[in-house]
């Protein structure tokens, strides 16, 4: 038996570790070239068709700015803030990033976004993009992001079924109820409306309540729900299921995918969503004929809809990359970029100038979004609103759908929860 000494053993271990590490250690650090800057960009374009649209924008930007290289990274929405926060604290944040309006206050608070008010003003972007669209990226008068596209609420409806029934898409809440009842035929597995009673349904409830004249909070950020109006809104909405049976019985568990697939497979006649799902609808149901888009109905006080911008901001650009970073996020606000992206993805432009573009005006599918985008604002947000909506609004809305409590009970609980959420 040959002897294995301790020294041999340690040498072997060291050699094995070195072999594992071999060829995998990083090369020289990236050298920054000011003449040919590379701009990192974090985004959430995950779905295949959206990513394909993004690739086209990248290619077009490269053609227009051959000296600038964009280094994109897809970051899942659910992990975005964890990754972004870690990178900011570790001083390794990207040069530019996509930013949702709900996250911008936190991103600014940790020093992750730069004030770009001066550049926005110099480039004249305030004139091209409506003032309301800047609100979500403005904190204490400073602008931290350029609106790149919008998610505009609208309604999909089965154009073939409505034509068959001799009905027009409903424009008011009363007409909506009538249409939903008329389109319902449970024996043939058809329901008038695909209602979101599962995860995500909370946002629809607050919009309905507001459309019936009850604000959620006032200008000072204090609870301002009107009990009677909120009950009226919630009752109308839940009656579509509990009284009229015009939504699928699985409503309390129906989230986005269930609703999309129910609509696409001919189980529901109307569906509320926003412009972001247009490309999928086109892919599955074809360009026209089977389905169409319409404005969400008007409530007694206002339309049951909102328009949410997505922004691009400058985070931590390296030396010599500030101007290139600005060129990249400014490029997203240009009319051609926005219309091309719209054509490929359905993500609606933020620029007011696109209303005059023939590609937008000439497509009837966009008419509902064009009519909505400048009429409605972003959804109501306040510190604590995501938790209140998810933990108070949604479960009590579901309890009404299941017949466990009345709309009055639910609104009472929602108002108590709102007081707690606002008081922190």
């Amino acid at each position, binding site marked *: *038996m040959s002897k294995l000494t301790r020294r041999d053993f340690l040498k072997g271990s060291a050699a094995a570790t070195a072999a594992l590490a071999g060829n995998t250690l*990083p090369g020289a650090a990236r050298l920054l070239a000011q003449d040919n800057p590379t701009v990192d960009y974090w985004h959430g374009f995950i779905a295949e068709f959206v990513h394909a649209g993004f690739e086209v924008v990248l290619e077009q930007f490269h053609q227009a700015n051959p000296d600038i290289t964009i280094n994109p990274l*897809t970051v899942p929405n659910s992990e975005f803030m964890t990754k972004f926060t870690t990178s900011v604290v570790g001083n390794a944040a990207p040069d530019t990033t996509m930013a949702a309006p709900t996250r911008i206050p936190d991103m600014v608070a940790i020093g992750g976004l730069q004030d770009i008010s001066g550049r926005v003003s110099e480039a004249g972007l305030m004139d091209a993009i409506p003032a309301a669209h800047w609100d979500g990226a403005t904190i204490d008068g400073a602008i931290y992001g350029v609106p790149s596209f919008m998610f505009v609420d609208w309604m999909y409806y089965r154009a073939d079924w409505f034509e068959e029934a001799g009905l027009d898409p409903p424009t008011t809440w009363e007409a909506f109820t009538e249409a939903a009842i008329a389109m319902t035929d449970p024996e043939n597995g058809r329901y008038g409306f695909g209602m979101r009673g599962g995860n995500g349904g909370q946002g629809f409830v607050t919009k309905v309540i507001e459309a019936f004249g009850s604000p959620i909070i006032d200008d000072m950020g204090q609870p301002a729900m009107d009990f009677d109006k909120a009950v009226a809104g919630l009752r109308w909405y839940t009656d579509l299921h509990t009284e009229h049976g015009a939504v699928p019985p699985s409503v309390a568990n129906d989230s986005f995918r269930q609703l999309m697939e129910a609509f*696409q497979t001919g189980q529901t006649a109307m569906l509320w969503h926003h412009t972001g799902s247009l490309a999928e609808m086109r892919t599955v149901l074809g360009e026209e004929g089977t389905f169409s888009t319409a404005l969400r109905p008007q409530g007694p006080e206002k339309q049951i809809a909102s328009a949410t911008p997505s922004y691009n901001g400058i985070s931590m650009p390296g030396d010599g990359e500030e101007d290139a970073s600005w060129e990249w996020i400014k490029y997203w606000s240009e009319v051609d970029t926005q219309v091309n992206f719209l054509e490929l993805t359905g993500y609606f432009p933020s620029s007011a100038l696109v209303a005059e573009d023939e590609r937008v005006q000439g497509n009837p599918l966009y008419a509902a979004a064009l009519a909505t985008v400048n009429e409605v604002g972003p959804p109501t947000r306040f510190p604590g609103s995501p938790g209140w909506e998810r933990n108070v609004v949604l479960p009590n809305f579901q309890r009404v759908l299941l017949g466990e409590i009345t709309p009055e009970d639910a609104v009472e609980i929602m108002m108590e929860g709102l007081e707690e959420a606002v008081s922190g």
Partner: protein
Amino acid sequence: MQLSFRATQRLSRFLTAAVLVFAGIFALFPMVWTGLTSLKLNTDVITAEMQYLPHNPTLENYFELWSRKSFVTLFGNSVVITFMTVSLCLLVGTSAAYAFSRYRFTGRNAALVGFLLIRMFPMVLMLIPLFIIMRNLHLLNTRVGLALAYTTFLLPIATWMLKGFFDAIPPDLEDAARIDGATRAGAIVRVVLPLAAPGVAATAVLTAIAAWNEFLFALMFTTNEASQTWPVGLHLLVGEEFNLPWGLLSAGGMISIAPIIVFFVLAQKSLVRGLMQGAVKG
């Protein structure tokens, strides 16, 4: 009516079998369903009437996944990183576990508890310190960096598991080898490790599963697509809300579990023996 002893036994066996069959179906159904979905086109997945068996079985989803440019990179990165992590954990864990098992030194118990303590922290708490360390060492976006990061939370488990197996091997066997002229290291390699092989295999499989499936560190410590791993790629394939490619996703899921199943089959004999040893040891 009172049942006879034999009838009671039969009933008991029947109920046991029924529970086991139910548990088996409950455990296997999601995997079978995923496998069946991976053989369907998306148009056969999204239908008004549920289709349990694919009407037109196809491998198109697997081919499409394979043809994507990032597939080989993601898969390759995961294989290499898992191999490096398992090697590191076994190499360092074996030495540490042996020392904890055989030597009595100052701070031994504190070190053992310290190893466990690391596991008690949520991984997310380790993100920022690890990120800063890795950034300063230029280890972000590298396979070595990810393997080291995985080792931070897998090494304690590996060490504790291996220590249990070393404890079960009588020190007298090593003493006999040393009387025959073996050095301490020689006795470990030639006597202890062969006896602990089932335990080492069990530890390797569990470490490999954890490293193969790890998502959070892989996402946080990489900032370009060339250095990402399979779980990250699969997560990005899932998308958020729009246009879920169910068939592709299911094919990706089946591919994810394939290497672990192959590894398990290869190490099955040792693994079961190792797990049984751990289970009955007291």
